[in-house]
């Protein structure tokens, strides 16, 4: 059992991810923006962070950078439904910023669970 932190500003999406993660027998913390997520991350030191990219009050890429700097060993999964701009996607930038995996929204539960596994198991 691992501790997973879910950061997403959309309540419906956050609830769905929490459910998927719990089904895979992990404990879950959740935050609705990057600032809150960063605070929870520093306080609870989760094993995995799943974060959205487009969020108010500190968006995903900044959050990933900060978390990676504070906790180099944490596994970070970025997720986004944002389009590719001029051939570059937000998820590519997330990987460059320190994300270990990236999941394009909408995703299947198995995809999300697979992205957790290397660290969660």
């Amino acid at each position, binding site marked *: 059992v691992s501790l997973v932190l879910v950061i997403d500003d959309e309540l419906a999406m956050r609830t769905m991810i929490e459910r998927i993660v719990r089904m895979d027998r992990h404990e879950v913390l959740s935050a609705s923006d990057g600032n809150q997520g960063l605070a929870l991350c520093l306080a609870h030191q989760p094993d995995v962070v799943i974060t959205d990219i487009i969020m108010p009050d500190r*968006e995903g890429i900044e959050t990933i950078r900060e978390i990676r700097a504070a906790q180099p060993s944490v596994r970070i999964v970025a997720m986004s439904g944002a389009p590719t701009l001029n051939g570059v996607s937000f998820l590519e930038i997330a990987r460059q910023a320190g994300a270990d995996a990236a999941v394009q929204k909408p995703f299947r539960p198995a995809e999300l669970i697979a992205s957790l596994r290397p660290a969660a198991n």
Partner: protein
Amino acid sequence: MPRESGLVTRAVTTPTPRPKRQPSPAPVSESTSRHLAGRLQFLDLQPIKDRYKGDWEQTSARIDRLVRMRIERHLAPGDVCHRVRPTEHVIVFAGLSTDAAQAKCELITREIAQAILGDSDADELPIDVKLLPIPADTNIADADALGRALSKAEQDEAQKQPHVGSPENVANCADPPPPTFSYEPMWRPGRGVICSYRCRASFESEPSSLQRDFAVLAAATKQARRLMLEGRTLVIGVPVAFESLARYNERREYMRLLSELPQPARKLLVFELGALPEGVPQSRLQEIVGPIRQHCRAVIAELPSRVTTVKNLQDAAIAAVGIDLGADECAAEQSLFEQMARFCGVAGRARLPAYARGVSTLSLAAAAASNGFDYIAGTAVMMPLDEPRRIVRFGLTELYRPRA
């Protein structure tokens, strides 16, 4: 005190011919009890002497012609111009408001300085501008009578001023510093470039919207000329308030200044109509947009984010619509996210490109790009520049590049 020179002597012995459009000496505005006279005075001729070495007699004659031509280009029917003193020209304006007359005088002095010393050194030539009301019964066709009326107006004004001497009075009498201009890069996320720059003016004390708009126009046209000469194809955004163009006289003057720009330079300008009154009839909008549209690349409009339809703007040939996210400094980012999504939907339904200004955080920039805004500007994208320089490749990688 102005330094007298050879330029002066020649001018005194050879009176300045009157402009071609010299009107009859009838009062300029019969509905008012006074005329509005703009006095342009060279405060220091030394920069000219330093630049044009050699025969000062010839130089002064050339400068004299050049100054006269620059002023005459700006005279509207009914305006009168005289050289009342060797280093001093006075223009009597027909039917211009104080703000418009002030803006016009400043534009003329800038053009004169640029014509004499070139764009880069124009600031070195001090030319004082002063607007003075003179009695309506002044015979404005007579330079001497005009000079006397001006002297009287100056004396009257001096009597109204508090006595100088105390530091606060000295500070009050000082001319306000000229505005500074900056150019806000507009990122085009879909193309991954910055090729448009929006002109902004900063004043020490808040001017009227008309003064601001004329100053911005003057700065933007100067940059457009430069870009044209350098063969660059950047676009300059020129904000202008709806109310500045709502009155016929001001609109005519604005259009005249714009029409003086060469056609290729005009094609580098995009006018951004701001502060549109709610429910403005489409015919009125067309009346305002139509004349500008002929002299520029496009006309766009900045709107409050609460608008629910922009169909009337599309029908009035508005080419894009935008919002200023920085307008409400207290707004939470979550609410700005919602405003952006809503506004993009409104613009999309009318098939108009959308832009967002005042994007101050990466969250807003990312959300704006993700929502589909066609142009995004603000400090989160790039800080304003002192002048538009070149097309910049700018994509998500550059947006997220760590900055100092």
